[in-house]
């Protein structure tokens, strides 16, 4: 059979070809999008990138909540009588064609006056005339061309968010002042004596002074604040010696130029602040397309359909749902609250909550929990609890989600800074005391010189540059860390806890074995034909696994929700389903997920589904076991215990039937006894554990889709590299320690000049930038070498 790929979306297909305009499409949806584009002169879309599109999904009724004015207002960024501006997150944005088509939206609808794509954040900011186009129709238009926006509860009242650009401003101001002060200080460095200098030096000096004012009082503000906070809570953090150095530099320089004693150290001062800010900026690598702060709000819909007593449908905001309300949940919609099923067949996918991909069937009267996704048709439910009180959302009221992991963690820089500050003050006092007796006129000079030259710029830069660079290298290797602190914490790990389903197992693959009497060819044909009719996930995977057979037309087919399926052809009947359904006695049942088959009411055997573990799992665990305690906490039953014991190193601890709170408590308990825990998980059920652990890594098959709140996101394909990542983090700590040694050497040289009372501004101006630059150079080269080993 000839395989073709769709002109629009690139999907390979062999049957049901749709041909239009000499191009083949996989479905009518894709063809329709092409039609829209070609009718509007927008076919350039296909020139920029081969088959860039996505198949539009059925959205009928899905965006009815955008009729609710309150919801619309909360989404809009700007709204006056005529113009509205909205920023929509579109997950499908992935190539230049996407940018092009979305920025040409005005050709599809003239009411759209501008649309600007932010590729990194995967969003589009649309300005449109609200009297000609409503937000609902805009969203529908986007969905129609395959760019369906994703609107979640997280977007509620997000429209008016401000971007924090203060670091760029500070960097700009510091750089500007640094450059100008450098030029202004040159004349005095080059021509120490002479008429010219004597006449003009004050002008240059006071100009330098005025340039340094914004640097000290604006750019360096954060260092003063942080130092003050550190001192009040009794911690000598790295900002204490920095703030001390900056204030001494500024005060001594000001006094020097006021009394006409010298040029001051304004160039060193502004250079110091500039380099420190560069370090901060470098460390601030963010993956704008990822979100590390997701809670249930990012998954939940913003609006839902409520059925009024009169039978009318009405869209309401999710927070407005009250106990006792009747809701309509459409196909593919998420259930936002705990509720009771009243009407319709429910086929609920709880994979958001549990990580378990297998859908469960529910019948009317059953309780449904928030977070499940309805997979089959619409259902009606009665609300039991409001959003905040639902079982799933209550997990987020746990204190652990309000805790900042940075608190209570002493980073390597602050660890060294405590000793450094004490040593620095000791040297300053000893040297000053000596000079008080030797030559008291120099004593104050020496005291300030020590504080100036020892200002730990290089120490403060070592960690930001090492971690910042490693963050980028990890990003290329598909481990996306939230910030530099994560890498530092990763290096200190001694216990690793894994979730089972979706973390150490691959979601997409399952292994199936058959036990029992052999099935005849006729029975196999019948089985395959029967399974074909069922939408149950287990039926689908079993169907895909069985050998190719001709599909026969069944005489009779019945599906019993929650039990199994039955079919008949001529004289033969077959039953497929749960153990009790096919008539197996309870003692023969096992815990594994299994589908049982009986033919003509005689029990034949069962297909058992095993988890397919990720390739290289054994090897990874053997690498990790040397330095870490390994634990598996699974929310599933213990059916896989035997399998896992064989596969993993002997001392791996296995725990089954763990609820989300159990996982959290387990980690908490071990942290109290000193364990540094790395939690590796995937589902929302791990969210508590990921937050509680020292480092929480979420495994994701596709980093662009959902992952729970965590410290780092690891692409599933790189799961086996976990050991290398940990090892690299540990080496990073070594690099930083070597940088400290390097900067101490510079400090020792500088201190020699300071203690002997010969520190001239020009020495400071050379030594301080030199130490900073060599530290930056050293850490960058060392981390790049480290990165090469990762590959």
């Amino acid at each position, binding site marked *: 059979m000839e*395989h073709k790929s769709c002109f629009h979306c690139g999907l390979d297909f062999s049957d049901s070809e749709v041909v239009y305009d000499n191009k083949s499409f996989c479905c009518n949806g894709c063809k329709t999008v092409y039609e829209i584009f070609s009718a509007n002169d927008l076919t350039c879309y296909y*020139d920029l990138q081969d088959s860039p599109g996505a198949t539009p999904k059925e959205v009928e009724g899905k965006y009815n909540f955008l009729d609710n004015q309150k919801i619309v207002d909360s989404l809009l960024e700007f709204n006056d009588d005529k113009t509205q501006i909205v920023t929509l997150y579109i997950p499908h944005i992935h190539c*230049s064609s996407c*940018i092009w088509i979305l*920025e040409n939206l005005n050709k599809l609808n003239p009411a759209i006056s501008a649309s600007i*794509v932010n*590729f990194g954040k995967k969003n589009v900011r649309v300005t449109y005339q609200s009297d000609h186009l409503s937000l609902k129709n805009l969203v529908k238009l986007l969905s129609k061309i395959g760019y369906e926006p994703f609107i979640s509860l997280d977007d509620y009242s997000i429209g008016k968010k401000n971007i924090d650009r203060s670091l760029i401003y500070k960097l700009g101001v510091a750089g500007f002042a640094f450059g100008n002060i450098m030029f202004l200080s040159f004349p005095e460095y080059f021509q120490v004596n002479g008429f010219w200098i004597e006449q003009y030096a004050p002008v240059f000096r006071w*100009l330098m002074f005025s340039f340094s004012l914004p640097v000290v009082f604006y750019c360096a503000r954060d260092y003063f604040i942080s130092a003050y906070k550190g001192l009040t809570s009794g911690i000598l953090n790295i900002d204490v010696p920095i703030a001390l150095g900056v204030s001494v530099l500024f005060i001594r320089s000001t006094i020097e130029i006021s009394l006409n004693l010298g040029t001051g150290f304004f160039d060193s001062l502004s250079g110091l602040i500039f380099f420190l800010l560069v370090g901060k900026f470098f460390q601030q690598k963010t993956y704008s397309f990822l979100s590390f702060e997701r809670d249930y709000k990012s998954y939940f819909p913003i609006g839902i359909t409520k059925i009024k007593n009169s039978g009318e449908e009405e869209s309401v905001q999710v927070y407005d749902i009250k106990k006792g309300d009747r809701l309509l949940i459409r196909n593919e919609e998420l259930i936002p609250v705990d509720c009771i099923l009243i009407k319709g067949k429910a086929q609920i996918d709880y994979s958001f909550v549990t990580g378990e991909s297998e859908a469960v069937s529910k019948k009317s009267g059953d309780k449904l929990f928030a977070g499940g996704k309805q997979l089959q048709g619409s259902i009606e439910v009665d609300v039991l609890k409001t959003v905040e009180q639902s079982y799933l959302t209550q997990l987020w009221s746990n204190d652990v989600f309000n805790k900042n992991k940075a608190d209570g963690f002493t980073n390597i820089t602050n660890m060294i800074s405590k000793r450094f500050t004490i040593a620095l003050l000791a040297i300053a006092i000893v040297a000053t005391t000596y000079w008080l007796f030797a030559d008291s006129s120099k004593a104050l000079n020496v005291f300030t010189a020590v504080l100036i030259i020892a200002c730990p710029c290089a120490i403060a830069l070592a960690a930001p540059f090492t971690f910042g660079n490693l963050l980028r290298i990890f990003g290329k290797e598909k481990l996306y860390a939230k910030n530099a602190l994560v890498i530092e914490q990763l290096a200190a790990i001694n216990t690793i806890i894994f979730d089972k389903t979706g973390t150490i197992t691959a979601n997409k693959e399952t292994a199936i074995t058959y036990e029992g009497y052999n099935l005849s060819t006729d029975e196999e044909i019948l089985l395959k034909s029967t399974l074909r009719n069922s939408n149950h996930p287990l039926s689908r995977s079993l169907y895909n696994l069985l050998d190719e057979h001709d599909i026969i037309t069944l005489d009779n087919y019945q599906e019993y929700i929650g039990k199994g399926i039955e079919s008949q052809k001529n004289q033969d009947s077959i039953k497929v389903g749960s153990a009790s359904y096919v008539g197996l006695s309870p003692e023969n049942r096992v815990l594994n997920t299994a589908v049982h088959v009986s033919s003509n009411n005689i029990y034949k055997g069962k297909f058992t589904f095993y988890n397919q573990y990720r390739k290289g799992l054994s090897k990874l665990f053997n690498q990790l076991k040397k330095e870490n305690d390994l634990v598996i906490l699974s929310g599933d039953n213990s059916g896989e215990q035997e399998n896992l014991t064989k596969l993993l190193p002997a001392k791996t601890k296995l725990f089954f039937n763990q609820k989300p709170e159990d996982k959290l408590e387990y980690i908490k308990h071990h942290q109290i006894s000193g364990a540094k825990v790395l939690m590796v998980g995937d589902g929302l059920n791990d969210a508590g554990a990921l937050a509680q652990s020292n480092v929480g890594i979420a495994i994701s098959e596709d980093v662009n889709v959902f992952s729970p709140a965590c410290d780092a996101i690891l692409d599933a394909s790189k799961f086996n590299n976990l050991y290398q990542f940990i090892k690299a983090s540990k080496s990073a700590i070594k690099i930083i320690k070597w940088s400290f040694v390097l900067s101490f050497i510079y400090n020792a040289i500088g201190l020699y000049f300071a203690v002997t009372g010969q520190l001239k501004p020009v020495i400071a101006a050379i030594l301080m930038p030199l130490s900073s630059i060599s530290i930056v150079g050293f850490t960058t080269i060392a981390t790049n070498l480290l990165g090469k080993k990762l590959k």
Partner: protein
Amino acid sequence: MSVIYILLAISIIVAIGFFIAFIVAVKSGQYDDSYTPSVRMLFEDELIKEKPEKTILTKKTNN
């Protein structure tokens, strides 16, 4: 009045001019998205193309 004052004044005015330009650029959001503009600048040609239909290549089929 020495010429040095004039030179200093000019140099500072020029420097402040650039500084203001930088602030304005940051304020207008130029540094918020550093990737999309690099792609966007390549689109200029496509927009004015008269009959883009003819330029579409039929996609190769994978056998």
